[in-house]
């Protein structure tokens, strides 16, 4: 009995230490963003590296960061890019998925096979030829050139198809009797009752776009159009930025919207990840 308790306590100590390994960097990032650099390095060997001391807390790093870099502009850019990708992506991919699930048409099997075959193409691997195509159609450094390549997503088309396959045939029969056309049926009946899949795929698309780095580095060199992850890297490697607290403030600001999204859509995100297996 006694031995069992000791093992239990040791187990809890072990899993707690393990949990600290996963949270301490983020904790340090947030706490350090509210301190001046002197205090960050004074506290670094103590527990106060992770715990805010009321008397030292300051929003100076944020004020100074925002006076040096217009990071809200970059966040606004990213918000716009992510929203546009979500809206157009959901439209384009769900329509295609619906057609493959519910309509009969010539070459249906061929189109489906093409979609599945394209799923195996490793997207980032072909990033240079993609750049070349966008370059050729003169869309480098334009919002369209940055966004259009990732609107159609074969994985999402496939997920939508799988979802719509489970819809009962009676639904479309009933709609046909009521005189609804295919388009009306889609946006008046199919779309409203499929909200869960739209939310799941929408959130995953949003996060992927918000976190995007490599493609905007290549496709958008104009600093007015720069999305937030590229801006972060620019701030980090800027030789004028010598303050750790400024960097931590920038990282915290950029992470905040993602944390809020997770708070509201945790279940959908987990489901989306489990379905598509990204990250």
């Amino acid at each position, binding site marked *: 009995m006694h031995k069992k308790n000791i093992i239990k306590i040791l187990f809890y100590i072990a899993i707690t230490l*393990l949990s600290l390994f996963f949270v301490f960097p983020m904790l340090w990032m947030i706490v350090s963003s509210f301190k001046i650099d002197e205090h960050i390095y004074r506290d670094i060997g103590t527990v106060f590296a992770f715990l805010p001391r009321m008397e030292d807390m300051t929003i100076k790093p944020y004020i100074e960061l925002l006076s040096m870099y217009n990071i809200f502009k970059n966040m606004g850019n990213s918000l716009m890019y992510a929203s546009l990708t979500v809206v157009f992506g959901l439209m384009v*991919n769900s329509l295609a998925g619906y057609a493959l699930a519910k309509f009969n048409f010539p070459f249906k099997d061929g189109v489906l096979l093409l979609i599945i075959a394209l799923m195996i193409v490793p997207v980032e*691997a072909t990033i240079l030829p993609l*750049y070349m195509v966008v370059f050729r159609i003169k869309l480098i450094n334009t919002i369209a050139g940055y966004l259009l390549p990732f609107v159609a997503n074969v994985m999402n088309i496939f997920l939508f198809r799988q979802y719509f396959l489970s819809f009962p045939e009676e639904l479309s029969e009933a709609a046909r009797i009521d005189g609804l056309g295919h388009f009306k049926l889609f946006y008046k009946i199919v779309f409203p009752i499929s909200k869960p899949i739209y939310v799941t795929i929408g959130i995953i698309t949003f996060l992927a776009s918000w976190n995007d*780095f490599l493609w905007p580095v290549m496709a958008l060199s104009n600093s007015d159009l720069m999305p937030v992850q590229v801006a972060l890297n620019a701030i*980090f490697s800027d030789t004028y930025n010598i303050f750790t607290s400024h960097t931590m403030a920038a990282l915290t600001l950029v992470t905040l919207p993602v944390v809020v999204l997770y708070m509201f859509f945790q279940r959908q995100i987990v489901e989306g990840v489990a379905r598509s297996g*990204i990250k």
Partner: protein
Amino acid sequence: MELTKKKSKYSLKESLTAYIFLLPALMLAFTFIILPIFSAFVNGFTDYYLLKPDEKIFIGIDNFIRMASDTLLLRTFKNTLYFVLLVVPLQLGMALILALIVNKKIKFNGYYRMAYFAPAVLSLVVISILWSVLLNPSSGLANQILMSVGIPRQKFLTSTTQAMPTIVVISAWSGCGYQMLIFLAGLKNIENSLYEAAEIDGANSWKKFLHITIPSLRPVTMFLIITTTIQAFKLIVQPMVMTGGGPDYSTMTILQYIYEYGFRHRNVGYVSAITLVFTLFLVIVSILIKKVLKEE
């Protein structure tokens, strides 16, 4: 006769609607997925240099021969392979252990699950910058912690031998939270009656784990091995932000080579050929893993 048969199979209106529904997706997929692959095929057999597009000439398989003796390219392939072979077992092993922990009936389960998942909300760029600061050899927190428990200062990302292993650990740290949740979903799907039956037969926890848990997680594990492996082969953001591929090219990956020499140095012809080989390689790897894991 044939014609009328076909006509009766499809309704014209339905077929037309279907293609209207499909048109935007097919047009975009053609332009941005199929056309790039086609362009890589065309350019891969030329000496296309972006700044001198008029001097582009067909050079046959020269680019492919050049790859075999390109020591930097081979080095980036070795680096990438090294990363994949370390990160896949480490990350999935960690994910499985974490899933087993939070699957137990422990106190504060919600806290542990949230804590283990926490790094997953950070973007790769945020992770890379944060760890670069933490791992700074002179002022970083990591060395402070190590020294407080009596371990000497480490060079981490500034050492040719430590940099890649460091990136491996950071990548596993940041990615295993998601996979913990996927494993957890797999664990919850295992029928409790299986464990009960085994208990009646007198099986201990280890035997139950070995003969029930592991085999039941097979499909999930297979899915995770394939997706993690392919993802790992495409490593680029962490070395790009943390080391720039250095020190002395020790962390430069294939994708980073493609970025540096194709995009920044504009050697489109040669790097298109590399892209073709790399893409084909990834496709073969994912098919091979599927085959091997299925046969076992």
